[in-house]
């Protein structure tokens, strides 16, 4: 398996010149903790160091793809860092390196980066939460699969669906900024580079003391549908993420205000619509 670790380390070095420089300076320190032999660490620095840097546009291309999926949070973040190109720092961040080292999703890692970075406006993290969920359902297999491997006779939320719990006002802010970015044409990156609209144009506050829920769905036409969800439905779907028996889900529905007959009908509808799998 160590060749896999070597290969993933090569990828990290190709994307992150700071990391590559550290590996060349002292591979045994920079790669400490990785399952690599001494010869493998030495092998990583045997090529001319400049060979890792022959594609100067590698990060820009990857960032371009990510911006398309994170238009709203990237737009707002770029108001605070001055230039959307500053988000290129993601490729030197722990979220990126963990993603490569663990065979993760680049889009999910970028979403985590946007949610964790202290850009100066908490609304960026909230917007990234929505866009991370969109990216996730967009990648779900066309054939529905459960979020987790669940034993038989357990109902689980389909990976083509996601529910996000947000600070109140986030959905409206998201729609306003996403609409603004859409108005700039098909090339999201070009718009993010040229747009000078101040963040103050979108003053919608988000109120973390109150919460709202969105139900995000990957549609059969290849798109993504976003709709507000009642707190009760959202809580039920979130409860279904790890998988529970039908009886447990019905009991949860009753706790959330349904009578037993309603609970059964709700579960039947959710199964029929492919939101729950069982």
């Amino acid at each position: 398996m160590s060749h896999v670790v070597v290969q993933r380390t090569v990828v990290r070095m190709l994307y992150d010149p700071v990391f590559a420089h550290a590996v060349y300076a002292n591979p045994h320190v920079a790669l400490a903790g990785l399952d690599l032999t001494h010869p493998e660490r030495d092998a990583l620095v045997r090529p001319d160091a400049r060979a890792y840097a022959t594609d100067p546009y590698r990060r820009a291309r990857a960032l371009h793809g990510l911006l398309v999926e994170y238009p709203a949070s990237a737009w707002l973040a770029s108001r605070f860092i001055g230039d959307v190109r500053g988000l290129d720092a993601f490729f030197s961040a722990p979220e990126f390196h963990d993603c490569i080292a663990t065979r993760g999703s680049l889009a999910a890692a970028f979403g985590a980066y946007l949610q964790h970075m202290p850009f100066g406006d908490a609304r960026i993290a909230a917007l990234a939460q929505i866009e991370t969920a969109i990216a996730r359902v967009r990648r779900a297999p066309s054939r529905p699969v459960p979020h987790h491997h669940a034993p038989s006779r357990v109902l689980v939320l389909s990976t083509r669906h996601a529910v996000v719990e947000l600070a109140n006002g986030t959905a409206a802010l998201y729609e306003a900024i996403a609409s603004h970015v859409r108005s700039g044409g098909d090339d999201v990156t070009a718009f993010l580079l040229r747009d000078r609209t101040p963040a103050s144009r979108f003053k919608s506050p988000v109120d973390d003391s109150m919460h709202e829920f969105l139900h995000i769905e990957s549609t059969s036409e290849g798109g993504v549908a976003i709709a507000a969800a009642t707190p009760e439905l959202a809580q039920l779907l979130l409860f279904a993420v790890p998988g529970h028996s039908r009886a447990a889900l019905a009991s949860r529905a009753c706790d959330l205000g349904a009578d037993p007959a309603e609970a059964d009908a709700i579960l039947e509808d959710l199964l029929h619509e492919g939101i729950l799998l069982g």
Partner: protein
Amino acid sequence: MRFLDRVAKLPKLGIGVSTEYGAGDAPHALDPIALNAEQPQYARFLEVGIETAKGLDRHARAWVERGLPATYHFLDVNLDEPEDLDDAWLDAVRGFAAEIRPAWFCGDAGLWHFGKRERGHMLLLPPVLNDDAASALADGIVALREATGFEVFPENPPGQVFVGDLHLLDFFARVCERADTGMLLDCAHLGIAQRMTGHEPLDGLDGFPCERIVEMHVAGGTVHEHEGFGFVEDDHHTGVLPPTWRIFEHAVTRARNLRAVVFECERNASEKCIPGFARIAATLSGAGHTALVPS
């Protein structure tokens, strides 16, 4: 049945051209069907590069609808990662194979994507050149062969960073032996690897089991410089670099089971490609591969 017996049953495709999704839409791009009609000896088959998320474009579809010969060049599988040969991908591959009816599968045996197969993860890196990686790659080739019923020929990928203790040709000799398979030798990629690892173009070829070479690629490249560091970009230009020709002309005389040669020039006007095709044909004739260049 051992590979050296199986290879006798494979068709002699001759000289062909390659394509991938969208390549034929490039301005003045080579039209394989037109070339097949005008100079059939240079376009006897089409190597269809397939990324399952994209499938076939209208040019590839038009070719296969005519019932013309094709090979399936995968663009989206890390053969050394067992989890990459998942059911959904294999189902898609079988579907495209049923459509194009390839003579065989082939493709760069490297890292096509980091992480799972999803948007934004695409790249192409050479494999780590060590013994463990050779075994893992061989296992993946056998698994794909068994899952599809087609021969699977690994191709040496391009790259700028080659890591590992084996020479690239020694690595692929082990892969081919352990998977009991043939090889797609990309002469341009080998030239790049030799340059990047400080070798002469022909180093290692005499020790390589050339009888396992079933297909060869010839393609142009461009020399670039970055901070004083020279490297070759495998851009499929029509200007084939001298080391690539040297490798092709040397290996072709030893590749007694050669079945196909692709001139990778899919984004170039056909008139600019003809001299390359002609040189390939002359080389094949000179090496005695007359079945590959019918008059």
